[in-house]
């Protein structure tokens, strides 16, 4: 079997790496790039722990072949921070104690980011819809939804809308 050259941008960096065509995007991120912030839970597109942002949209990286991301741009949890600071969503998760065991957090935060990028003023229901594909087995949904709501509020206040 032939390896294929994957050309991909991850967190703003360009990579060209020969990959086995069978590997999924999450396997590529974790095993080839060492970006282990993205978690693989079920591997069947149910739990959402592997959520990353591809071309601005949240996707489940266990259900994409790495080669699906050819010439595309991926954002993982490692690319969220802004300089030395955490991303406001990461801050909001910490401040609202929305992280318990932490396994779902990277995926939750990326789903939340994709939502807020599209909709700066989501209702609680819209937030719940946006994270339908992200399971939290600690059952911490209330604080997660709160964190996203508060983050959206603060960002709107900061930019004066």
């Amino acid at each position, binding site marked *: 079997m032939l390896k294929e050259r994957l050309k991909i941008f991850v967190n703003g960096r360009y990579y060209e790496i020969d990959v086995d065509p069978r590997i999924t995007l999450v396997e590529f991120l974790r095993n080839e790039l060492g970006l282990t912030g993205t978690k693989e839970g079920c591997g069947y597109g149910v739990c959402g722990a592997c959520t990353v942002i591809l071309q601005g*949209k949240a996707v489940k990286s266990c259900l994409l072949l790495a080669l699906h991301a050819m010439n595309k741009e991926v954002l993982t949890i490692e690319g969220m921070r802004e300089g030395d600071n955490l991303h406001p969503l990461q801050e909001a998760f910490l401040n609202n104690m929305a992280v318990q065991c932490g396994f779902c957090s990277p995926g939750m935060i990326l789903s939340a980011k994709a939502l807020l990028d599209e909709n700066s003023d989501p209702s609680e229901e819209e937030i719940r819809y946006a994270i339908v594909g992200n399971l939290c087995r600690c059952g911490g949904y209330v604080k997660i939804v709160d964190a996203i709501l508060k983050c959206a509020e603060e960002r709107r206040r900061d930019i004066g809308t």
Partner: protein
Amino acid sequence: MMQCFNFLRPESTEEACTLIAKFGDSAKIIAGGQSLLVLLKQRLISPQYLINIKDLKELDYINYDEKFGIRIGALTTHRSIETSPVVKKRFSVLSEVERNLASVQIRNWGTIGGNICHADPASDIVPPLISLDARVKVKSLLAIREIPLHNLFKDYYETTLRVDELVTEICIPDVQNGTGVAYSKFSLRRFDMAVAGVAVSITINLADRICKDIRIIVGGVSAVPRRVFESENAMRGNNLAENLIREAAMVASEEVDPVADVHFSRKYKREIVKILVRDVITQAIQKASGI
């Protein structure tokens, strides 16, 4: 891990057709792969060639025109359909169905053509499309043909497509005034696959409340989506009284041939179908009446 395959990336629909004609049964087409990757990981299928068509921009579009209705490219994502203003306005049932289909991540990457060709009997989008009288455009190197979507399904996860054919477009005629279309499913959680799903398109004469035409499609309970003609016949031409709807629902529940599974018996599934048909006919009538 999946078994070895060669990953091919055609740059046009034409080239994709050339490749599937060349490799036939040893190849599998992959679009978003939201269903196919599961089958590959479980080694339920092991193609030698995977032909990736996800990047063919030419098959990603939603075009509307009053005369022909809507044309949706096979590689349009669920999310694009869900958020399309023209779909929301003219085919609101599709926006509603898409909103409750899996999760936003899956809808962002999964395509309507992929969903249809996967031929999962529990597909949420297929019954409403059939109720809307959708047709699919099918292309091979030799010809392009258009077939009613209903005729695409053969058995569980099997279509009537020939190995060298590719679905390129879904065409849906415009919905006329006086027609209402609704879909509802029964599932363990709202976003899960349907245990049973029912779509109804009904055209009523608003003056005398007569059912002029109706299509009722039941998905999820058997190998292919089932149009329940006897139940439709019970409705057609009659006055829309509540007991008529109950009667049609009863007929539908006996007309389907559910398969028992680990969760639900045949009898239970018939009961679900009965209740869904009753409720969805009622919803469709409300939509047709502009309520």
